[in-house]
């Protein structure tokens, strides 16, 4: 029986579909929960009932959004098992723990106090209610922490060792997993980008109220708060974005090459400011990868290596090998000169064969020879995942998708810096209502925040292909043994249900906004 590539593709598609829908709702939950808690804090400290109205209005929109995030999250959690059964065993010893901790530590916090938040206004004291709102925000953000730790581990596995007896990787150091620099950067980058989205959401809707000359108090206060929050979040996102890109350079050089459309590496490499890729470019050929390109000289070397003269390997270099790597994540055997992808595949096969030999010898009782096989396995384990690949070009992700997604994300991020500064200044001087074009711009910026977030995940996930776990397990060896038709069927069922839910969500949200905050909240009209 051969590997069913169609099933792998559909399984990847299904996971991507679920994750992308999930990420349409979660960022708003993460950011809006914090904004609501801040709004309620103002209410409790000033006693101004207007702030209670403001809090309750945004809380209604929060609730409409929250429930789909929850529903899609459950599916994602179970899809690790249903569609990625080999993965679940091969790294479950490390990956399962953050998921369980997420449930015990974060979800219960969120789901318990969200009930107090929505139903407790007349049942619990003001302060307890405020604490509940903050705990809901804390729970949401803590759950993001744990799932992002899990994701970061797949991008740059640390703190574990392969155990040939159990045929899986086993955790050796929990703190290394939790505090890996990739995890730290990923958490702050992802969460701060979610805060941008929530800020733009509040900004856009409040601008609409101003355009319609309705709810001016609510809109102005919300705009001021959102733009301060949004600006801080944008700066934090930029800072952690730099940290994340630095980590990608060090741990996933192929992803960096794809992000920048860099085929032929060079010292003092420039950062592409704007580029249009040449669609006929293939790895290894002499075609220029770009039809059009403007770059900041030496910036890529500087950002990636903190050294403007550093050598940044391109796609072709990583395939061919033979250069002295300046990145940190490198097996001992490649310290002075990198291996070609062919060599890595060969070593991966040696590791896989040694694993098989080890198991056979052990069950035959030949422990001495088994130990020799184990040594061969461990000496080559850094390349284990490569052994499943068929050809060197398998290690290249989709360059155009990664490149464009990365640049779109960065452009959107920069645009928001300008938008928030402009709004903040005009809002501070109370000039905003006169600038209808800016209010309209703010309103139509809402979709951009969503596109930015999706683009970020596309960079992270498409850019790391073919790996489910970097260098250790490609997606083609990670999947469950099911037939392609079953996965296709569930893919389309999910697509249908998610889309229906999304339409319902948008329709309800638009209606609730147009109703506005009547009598302390537009529930139940």
């Amino acid at each position, binding site marked *: *029986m051969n*590997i069913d590539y169609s099933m792998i593709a559909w399984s990847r598609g299904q996971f991507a579909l679920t994750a992308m829908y999930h990420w349409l709702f979660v960022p708003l939950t993460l950011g809006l929960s914090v904004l609501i808690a801040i709004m309620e804090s103002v209410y409790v400290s000033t006693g101004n009932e207007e702030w209670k109205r403001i809090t309750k209005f945004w809380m209604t929109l929060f609730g*409409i959004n*929250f*429930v*789909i995030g929850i*529903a899609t999250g*459950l599916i994602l*959690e*179970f899809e*690790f*098992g*249903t569609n990625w*059964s*080999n993965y*679940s*065993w091969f790294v*479950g*010893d*490390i*990956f*399962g723990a953050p998921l*369980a*901790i*997420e*449930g015990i530590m974060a*979800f*219960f916090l969120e*789901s*318990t106090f*969200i*009930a*107090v938040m*929505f*139903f407790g*206004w007349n049942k*619990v004291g003001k302060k307890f209610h405020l604490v509940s709102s903050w705990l809901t925000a804390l729970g949401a953000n803590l759950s993001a922490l744990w799932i992002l730790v899990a994701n970061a581990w797949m991008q740059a596995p640390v703190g574990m060792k392969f155990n040939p007896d*159990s045929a899986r990787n086993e*955790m050796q150091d*929990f703190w290394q997993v939790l505090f890996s620099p990739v995890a730290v950067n990923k958490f702050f980058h992802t969460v701060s980008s979610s805060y941008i989205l929530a800020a733009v959401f509040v900004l856009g809707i409040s601008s609409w109220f101003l355009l319609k000359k309705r709810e001016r108090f609510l809109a102005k206060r919300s705009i001021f708060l959102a733009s301060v929050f949004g600006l801080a979040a944008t700066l934090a996102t930029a800072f952690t974005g730099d940290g994340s890109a630095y980590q990608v350079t060090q741990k996933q050089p192929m992803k960096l090459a794809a992000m920048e459309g860099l085929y032929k590496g060079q010292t003092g490499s420039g950062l592409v400011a704007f580029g249009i890729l040449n669609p006929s470019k293939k790895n290894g050929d002499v075609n220029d990868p770009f039809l059009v390109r403007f770059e900041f000289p030496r910036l890529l070397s500087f950002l990636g290596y903190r050294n403007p003269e550093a050598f940044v390997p391109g796609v072709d270099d990583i395939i061919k090998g033979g250069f002295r790597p300046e990145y940190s994540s490198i097996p001992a055997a490649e310290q002075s000169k990198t291996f070609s992808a062919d060599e890595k595949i060969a070593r991966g096969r040696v590791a896989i064969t040694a*694993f*098989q030999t080890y198991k*056979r010898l052990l069950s035959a009782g030949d422990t001495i020879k088994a130990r020799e096989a184990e040594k061969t396995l461990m000496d080559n384990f850094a390349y284990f995942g490569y*052994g499943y690949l068929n050809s060197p070009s398998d290690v290249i992700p989709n360059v155009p998708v990664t490149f464009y997604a990365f640049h779109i994300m960065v452009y959107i991020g920069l645009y928001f810096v300008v938008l928030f500064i402009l709004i903040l200044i005009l809002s501070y001087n109370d000039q905003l209502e006169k600038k209808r074009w800016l209010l309209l711009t703010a309103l139509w910026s809402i979709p951009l925040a969503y596109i930015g977030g999706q683009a970020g995940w596309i960079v992270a996930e498409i850019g790391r292909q073919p790996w489910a776990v970097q260098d250790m397990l490609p997606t083609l*060896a990670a999947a*469950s*043994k099911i037939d392609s038709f*079953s996965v296709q069927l569930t893919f389309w*069922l999910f697509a249908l*249900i998610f889309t*229906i*839910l999304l339409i*319902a*969500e948008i*329709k309800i949200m638009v*209606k*609730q906004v147009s109703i506005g905050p009547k009598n302390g909240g537009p*529930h*139940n*009209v």
Partner: protein
Amino acid sequence: MFENMSLEMLQAYWWIIISLLGSLLVFLMFVQGGQTLICTLGKTETEKKLIINVLGRKWEFTFTTLVTFGGAFFASFPLFYSTSFGGAYWLWMAILFAFIIQAIAYEYRSKPNNFLGERIFDIFLFINGALGTFLIGVAVSTFYTGAPFIVNKISLSVLSDPSISRWMGNAHGLDALLNWKNLALGLAVFFLARVLAIQYIANSVEDEEILKRSKQQLYANAIPFLVFFLTWVISAFLLTRGYFVEPDTGRIRPLKGKYLINLLSMPPVLFLFIAGLVFVLLGIALPLLDHNKNSRKGIWYTGPGAILTVFALLCTAGLNDTAYYPSTTAPMSSLTIHNSSSSRYTLTVMSYVSLLIPFVAAYITYAWYSINRKKISSDEFNSGEHSY
């Protein structure tokens, strides 16, 4: 503290936690049970709304417990996650589909411009309630009746087909529906969820009509529950074969009456099982014993009773050298708490995390109490408060 525990003790500790989460989940599925009774217990729109709002304030707990149950199972026994979820694909997918539509149904049903209309969202609640409970019951029953799979970890080295676990046949979990014993437990869980819902609603609302109907409905659901549950207990639990793991050799073989042996050789579990059953029966019989003030308090007996019974049942599935997920294809592939668990290090880390559970339970109880202090009546919906 956990560092000093042996791997075997940690595995048993985690099986007990999984059993506890599983039993809490079964109890909390009163929310699902209630969702199948909205039109039975409520006739007018106000009554239906009242029932939906009583249940709707608790759906997050059931949902979160399900998520945590999944996460904890993944972290502690990843081979189960890998083998059962990937193998019984359609069974688990059906459960997932039944659960996607729950949360939004509550939140969206009464909102204006909700695209599908209130009736469709109420149907979603019914589907979640009926299918969710039934299918989870069927899935849990396979812990005792077994499933057709093979696990071979050396397959990881086969480049053309590296799957370590595979399901026999093409039904991918739908095969579980062909075993009448699994269906019996599915139906037992379905009716139990309805019994719990009837009692929970009776204890939570101020509405004479709903109370009257809940009394009528109690026995219409309690009797089928008892029939299906006893059928399952006798046929798939007490008098059936379980899979025994020989402690010295690790060999796994079928053994007649294994679960009964487990009960008898673990007296505390036997005690919990009997105590659980007594509480459930007491809760159901309460309106017959006491016609007045306590007749609405059945949930205080049936709820804890259900938790104890399910907890004891799950304990017998995994403890005392038993395969908790027997392979009907190749007994040696059966999953035990020893061959499917995480490493000692991970179980130790997770055990420290488990110390949070009493703290979590404490704040849930406090928050639940502060919201539930007053019984819910329809007056509340006119006060501008959030409602479904």
